[in-house]
Structures are given as structure tokens and as C-alpha cells.
């Protein structure tokens, strides 16, 4: 059985601030336990929505296929 893997971190929201990287600290109100619980929820959402959205993307792009961008950034991202 293949290992499921884990979510290492989640950076919430989009940062409009053109001067620095904004991070959401509101979760700290709920406490660490809530943060830990949010992770599997996001994981589930990614799994459920990923298939549908990737299918949509594949229909509209021919760029599917994983690439290795760790060795050379010029190979770019893997646009799913």
C-alpha cells in the first residue's frame, strides 16, 4: 500500500500586499488543536476537488505532465 503522505503547511489566502509576505494569524485564536484539525479537512478538499479541477485543466491545456523543477528552475512548474 502506498503511503498517503502528509500536509506540511498551509498558507491561507492571497497576499495583495506588495511589500511583504502576509500570513494569517487568526487561527492562533482557535489554538493549536484547531490548526491540527484543519489540516485533514484541507487534505480532503484537495483530494475531492483536485480530480474535478485537474480534469478541467487537462481539457484546456496540453501542458499536463510532471516536470522536475528542483534541479533547474527553468523547467518551470507543473501546471496541472
Amino acid at each position, binding site marked *: *500500500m*502506498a*503511503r*498517503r*503522505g*502528509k*500536509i*506540511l*503547511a*498551509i*498558507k491561507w*489566502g*492571497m*497576499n*495583495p*500586499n*506588495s*511589500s*511583504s*509576505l*502576509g*500570513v*494569517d*494569524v*487568526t*487561527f*492562533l*485564536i482557535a*489554538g*493549536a*488543536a484547531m*490548526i*491540527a484539525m484543519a*489540516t485533514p479537512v*484541507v*487534505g480532503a*478538499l*484537495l*483530494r475531492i*476537488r*483536485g*480530480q474535478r*479541477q485537474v*480534469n*478541467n*485543466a487537462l481539457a*484546456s491545456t496540453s501542458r*499536463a*505532465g*510532471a*516536470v522536475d*523543477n*528542483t534541479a533547474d*528552475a*527553468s523547467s*518551470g*512548474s*507543473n*501546471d*496541472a
Partner: protein
Amino acid sequence: MRKPSWLQRVLDVARDQRLPRDAQALRFRVEQFGAIVQSLNPRALVFVDRDYARQWTARNGLAAPRWAEPEAEAGTRAKTQTRTRTRTRTRAETQTQTRAETRAETGTGTGTETETETPTRTGSPSATDSLTGITKRVLQKARALVRAVSPGTAATLDDNPITVAPLSAPLEAHLQLTNRCNAGCKGCYTGASPQGDNTSENREWQLAQWQRTIDELAAAGVFHVALGGGESAVLPWLGELADYCWQRGIVPNLTTSGLDGLPALLEIADRFGQINVSLDGLGDAYAAVRGFDGFARADAAIRALRQRKREIGINVVVTRSNFTQLDAIFAYAKKQRLSEVELLRFKPSGRGARGYDEVRCTDAQHRLFLPIVLAGAKRHRIRVKVDCSYTPMLAFHDPGPAVLAQLAVFGCTGGDFLIGAKAQGQLTACSFAAPPPPDNNGARPRVDELRSYWNRPDAFGVFRQWRNADEPCRSCTYLSVCRGGCRVVAAHAGTPAAPDPECPSVVRFRSSSR
């Protein structure tokens, strides 16, 4: 073709309201630790390990990702970089991890999810063994959870694989589209002026050059751009550039003062993922921070934009004078139904360098920052974000390095998670930093040549050298998260590579050392 139902049409409209353009697809980028998956709903960047990345691509019918560096080597590299605060591992733990890494490398995983799991789950266990295995697994997961959320847990580099090496490309780029602005704020970090950075020798970049930049960023794998200035709202081609970003798979976000170019901005507001208006105080406090009374105009812009778009927020530069007004600002944001308040630390950059010590928050205010922010956010039920330079102030309250890492709260991520670009295209580690020194040919790196500069060993200088931090950062359990605090503040104090002199822990350390 079958006609969509009325319900489908309503859902499509609702979805389009939330996610403009046709960038519905998730994007995926391979990293040394695994991958980053961009989710547009919920809006998040999700950092996953290699196993998750393999599963995700397999489930979605994509080719398996490849990594240049084997997993075991990545782990070894992390461990060799771990400093004295590294948690002591037992021999059994080390063996377990080694086996897990070996399985991952050879693709013979046995269902192990965390490095703390024992490798006894192969074969066909009996019912008793299975029950024991389940109990063990539950206990191990509980233990891992407690360890992850416990304040004071040692944050080591091998516990935090994201920090092992710089990312393959930035997550976002901060593009200063122009340095023209008529506002003349006394603390402007870019030193913007009505003529901008146009000189007889060099002109500010125009649409074609920024489009070329977007091409480069898209090829590198950047997820977001934050467009700013100066005042970018006055640029006649701003909407066209936003469209171009979507076409290339990048989400454009915008910062504006709201003081100029509002009618045109209202027409194109839906083309941005998020728009924030700079609002450094309410009423007279605005004038105290900015040097002129612009609150009424900024307030009118916020209200007008909010009528056009849901994802409108405010950026608040926190200074000594408006610190006590934070609660009132949160109340204002709630009343205007804004999506977020982003708090920015005042930086000694541009005109902000003049009189910095009188404007910046005091040490006492920095110590109170997190409790006040969280209390205000809770009271007014408003989403609050803080900029990366506030990480030392968060770490001071010891929320647990693993918790901060889980939220992707990192300190100085210039030249790694983010980059900046000046109005003439010079590449910088962040918007406050000076461009890197010229090369042997006298040329400075340009943002439209990002990939050729990114992997240079000396790229971005001290911004990537936080692992060599001096004390007290060297022994701080938060180093891999905080990264020594803000380099720009440290540079202003005299030594760019030194610990952030305004970090409460650094202040306490230095006062006790005297």
C-alpha cells in the same frame, strides 16, 4: 450539447463571483521537500511531502513527479544543518526514520505516514497483531499531534523540511509597477514621487516589459503577484496586465492608496484576486502617520471598492502613534465588511528611514503585539494577517514552532518565498531591500531574468544566510521559522546579517548580556 440547468447557471455565477477568470485549476509545483499545491477554493497554498505529491498526481492522472535529490539525501542534508538545539533522537527513532526514507526512495512504502511509525506493518498480521497495530498507530498519531502542537517543542531543520533549502521559485512576486505617486506620504518605503523613477537615462517599465516578466514568473512557477507602487491604479494598462496574469496562471493582487485613479480601478476591480487599500489610521491618526489628511478619500475608496468586490481589505502600517488604535481599526474593517486586515511593521526604507526610531513601535508595544491583535480579531471577528517581519513578535509568545510552521508563518523569506521588483525591473529580495550588487559586467539582476539568477550560490546575499545566525538566534528554537527576523531592520541598525534588533527576545538577551 445539453443546455445547463438554471441551478448550474446560478452556481456558475456564484463561482465566478468568487474566482474571477478561468483560472479554476489547481496548480502544482515540485519542491525538494515534496510539492506545493495551489488551491483556489479555499484559497491556500498547501505544502505537501513527497508521498502526498505522488498520491496526488497518481489520483489525478498526472505523471509521477521527479525530484533531483533523493529523499534520503535531502534528509541527510537537513540533519547536517541542524544546530545544537536539535532534539535528541533515540537510536530506534533514527533507525525507523532511515527505513522510512529508504522505503520512500525505493518506492516500497508500507503505509507508514510519519517518521515515528515503526516498520512492523509489513506482512499479513493476525487479528491480535492488527489490533495492536491499530492501537500503536493511534497512540503514535496522538503523540505526533501533541508534539506538533506543544509550545516549546524544538523546531529543528529536519523537523521542518520546508526550510531545508530555498524553494525552486518564489511563491509570489511583488512588482512595483511604478514609483509615481502624488500622495507624498512622509514614511513612504519606496520614496515615491509624482515623477516616479523616470530619469533621463532610465525609464520605468511599461506594459510589454511587465508582460515579459509575467511570462518569466509563470515559467518559474510563481503562484501570485502583488502589484503595487507608487500608485499603480493610475496606470492605463493595469487591467490588461491583470488579465495577462490570469492567462499565464498567476493570480494578480493589488495594493492601492485609494487616493488616485479610483474610477478606473472600479472598472477593473473584479480582475484581481484581492485588493487592499492602505489605511494607516482612522481620522486624525491617518494624518499623523502619513503627514496629510487623506482618510476621507481612502475611506470613500474602500466603500466603493467593497460595493464592487468582496475581497477587499486594508493594509495598516503599525507605528508608535496608531498602535493604540488597532482595535478601532478592526472595528472599522468589520463595519465595512472587509475580508481582512493586514498589519505591516514600519520599515526603515525609502523616506521611512528618516526619523525611523521615533516612528517605529517601542519594545513594549512589540511585546504586546500578538495578544492585542488576537484579542481584537476575536472581539470583532475579523481576519487578521501580519507581515513576515512580525514573526519575532509572534515567536516571543512561544506558540510553538511547529504551529507557526503549519501556518506557513516564516520570518524573513525575501529571496526565497518572495521577491521584489523595482519600477525599472531590478530584482530584489523584497520590496524594502536594495537590488543585489552588479556582476562583473556591471549589470544588476532583472526580474525578467529571474531563473538565471535564482540558483546562483550567492543569490540574494544575507537573505539566504540565516542558518549562520549569531546569538541569541543561533540557539533559538524558532530560528528555522523566524530566520533571524527582518534583514532590512537589521541593516538599518548596521549589520544586515545580525539578529533583528527589535525582536523582544534579542532585546532581552542583549540587555541581560550587558
